């Protein structure tokens, strides 16, 4: 059978077979193979941290990754930017009737490889099948569990005027790569998603300096929205410098053609960091040492307490950056 059918989701024999042949085959480990209603976890040390995300990316294979890689990176990264060491993921699959089983295998293989790289185990899973026309090929939920060591205390850090805003590389690559791979726009480019695991990089950042105030990953909504959330939550003014924003030329090109602002395009492998001014250089250097941080740049700083994000334009003007409001769709003007 080359295709997922509704019978693969009915809890019966075919489903068990699918789980054994694909999920256990690629992702199997001592915990997952308990095969019970729930999985017992070994004892953990440190403060527990959890996060959940569902992934509904379209297309499910894109330049630089696929939904499987994305689903692991996304949740591992959310743990990582909270200072946690990621340990376990659960894997909830919603398959659409008609999905080719070969595609599912490629995706689960990708889940397994990325999990291995991140050092996390798939602890539990679930597979559902929805009728053809009620899904997107595959949707994936990953929920993560990690631990934070006693030496890390991001929660109580206070962001102050003068703190630097640092990003680990170019912005919007993922969002642009996804848009570029949508047929309707009839575009193509060599652009690939930046989708990557951030846990090693965040560990490096946190060990390089005690001056880290905040870490996040600017995913949905892009850099502007991520910074807006920080500005609102921490009641600070953040000022970016347009001229030093790292944006790849392809991202600019696509933004131009489709009328989309790269500041609102998602990254899936970038850390956004707020660091004390005096520590910024050390942090930048530590980040640049990482293979996925070579493009690290200071892009702005905290300038006040107005709960807003501003961009100083190349010309010296100021733009207020609002959080994303509309769908990212090509516009007439």
């Amino acid at each position, binding site marked *: 059978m080359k295709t997922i059918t509704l019978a693969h989701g009915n809890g019966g024999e075919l489903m068990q077979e699918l789980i054994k042949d694909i999920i256990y085959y690629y992702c199997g480990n001592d915990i997952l193979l308990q095969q019970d209603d729930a999985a017992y976890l070994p004892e953990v040390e440190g403060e527990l941290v959890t996060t959940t995300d569902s992934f509904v990316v379209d297309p499910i294979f894109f330049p630089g990754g696929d939904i499987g890689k994305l689903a692991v990176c996304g949740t591992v990264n959310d743990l990582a930017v909270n200072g946690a060491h990621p340990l376990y993921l659960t894997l909830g699959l919603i398959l659409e009737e008609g999905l080719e089983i070969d595609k599912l295998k490629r995706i689960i293989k990708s889940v397994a490889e990325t999990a291995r790289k991140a050092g996390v185990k798939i602890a539990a899973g679930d597979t559902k099948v929805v009728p053809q026309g009620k899904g997107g090929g595959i949707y994936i939920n990953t929920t993560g569990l990690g631990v934070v060591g006693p030496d890390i205390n991001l929660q109580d850090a206070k962001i102050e005027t003068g703190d630097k805003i640092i990003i680990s590389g170019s912005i919007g690559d993922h969002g642009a790569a996804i848009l570029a791979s949508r047929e*309707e*726009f009839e575009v193509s480019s060599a652009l690939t998603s930046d989708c990557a695991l951030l846990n090693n990089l965040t560990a490096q950042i946190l060990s390089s300096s005690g001056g880290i105030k905040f870490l996040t990953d600017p995913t949905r909504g892009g850099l502007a929205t991520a910074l807006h959330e920080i500005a609102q939550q921490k009641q600070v003014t953040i000022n970016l410098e347009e*001229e030093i924003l790292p944006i790849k030329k392809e991202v600019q090109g696509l933004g131009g053609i*489709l009328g989309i602002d790269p500041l609102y395009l998602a990254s899936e492998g970038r850390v956004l960091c707020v660091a004390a001014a005096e520590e910024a250089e050390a942090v930048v250097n530590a980040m640049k040492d990482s293979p996925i941080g070579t493009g690290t740049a200071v892009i702005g700083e905290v300038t006040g307490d107005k709960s807003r994000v501003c*961009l*100083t*334009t*190349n*010309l*010296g*003007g*100021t*733009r*207020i950056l*609002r959080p994303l*409001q*509309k*769908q990212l*769709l*090509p*516009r*007439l*003007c």
Partner: protein
Amino acid sequence: MNYLEQFRAAKINSKLLEKLQQEFTVVKGKIKIMEVCGTHTQAISKIGLRELLPSNVELLTGPGCPICVTPFSYIDTAISLAQQEGVMVATFADFLKVPGSNSTLELEQAQGPNVKTVYSPLDAVKIAENNPEQEVVFLAVGFETTAPVIALSILDAQKKNLTNYSLLQALKTMPPVMEELVLNQYLDIDGFLCPGHVASIIGVEPFQFLAKEYDLPAVVAGFEVGDILFALEQIMEMIVRQEAKVVNAYPRVVEQKGNPKALKIMEQVFTSTVSRWRGLGKITNSGLELRPEYQEFAAENKFDFASATGKVAKQSGCSCGEVLMGIKKPTDCELFGTKCTPSHPLGPCMVSQEGSCAAYLYKVSVKMKLYSKE
């Protein structure tokens, strides 16, 4: 470096800005320059230009945002079409959030396959081709830049013998509304930034009346930072010299006669008509409609709009019209910032970040004024 990149070179731009600032301070008294193109408005906003200019300079935002100038009733008609069984409305994404009486196209899109956003009207024709059982109505809005592309979509649909593609017509033309603005007794404009992409189609000629008949300096401008600064500088020079010409500062794209081939296609399909502008009312010859031989592609002829527009009962209380006409400031609208916000806009001026109300709300310096004669 591609030669076009040089138009963005930061160093030259800073010098141009400096020069401009110097010139403005030389001139005493208020100077009002209107950009009539929404894309100019957007570019100006993106570079944060308004606040960099001396306080005696106002950059007025003109009626060049197709969303803002489209009347309320048009949105309602589009929505009522989308709600009809067997009808799919194809539209540029800009229109999705604009509120009608009871709904938006975005909400209709969410209810079923009623609204499809397209990158090009040619895509709408493809959709009609692939869905023969659906009537695909394209929302034909925009100005001369877009009109030839929409004309092309009609020729394409005709070649493909499609009987399920039509336009909901609201195409507009720039020079007539600019003349209307000039004639407005409350409005006092010192110069125009003319729309470069409209001009790429229609050429420089149609703007000559500004200088010849009304003695106003006007510059056809491009959209790079340098283009805008340069164009403003050219206007300033003319103001200082008390000279009125229409200068083409965008010659790499704008020919004196525009694009003859595009004009031909546009004129083959469309002819001039009166058009209704939000806040300005009806303006003679300011719109385009399908010529009689293409009337089979007019949604007006396929549907009974009386019943559709009959539904228009509740008004949103939006003061966009008055804001556009300068009778009210956005802050005078009682809905401003409370019931009407960018996430929940009640009027088109709040829909895009560069809409007059949205811009005002976020305290990007807004100095727009536009008075109506009424």
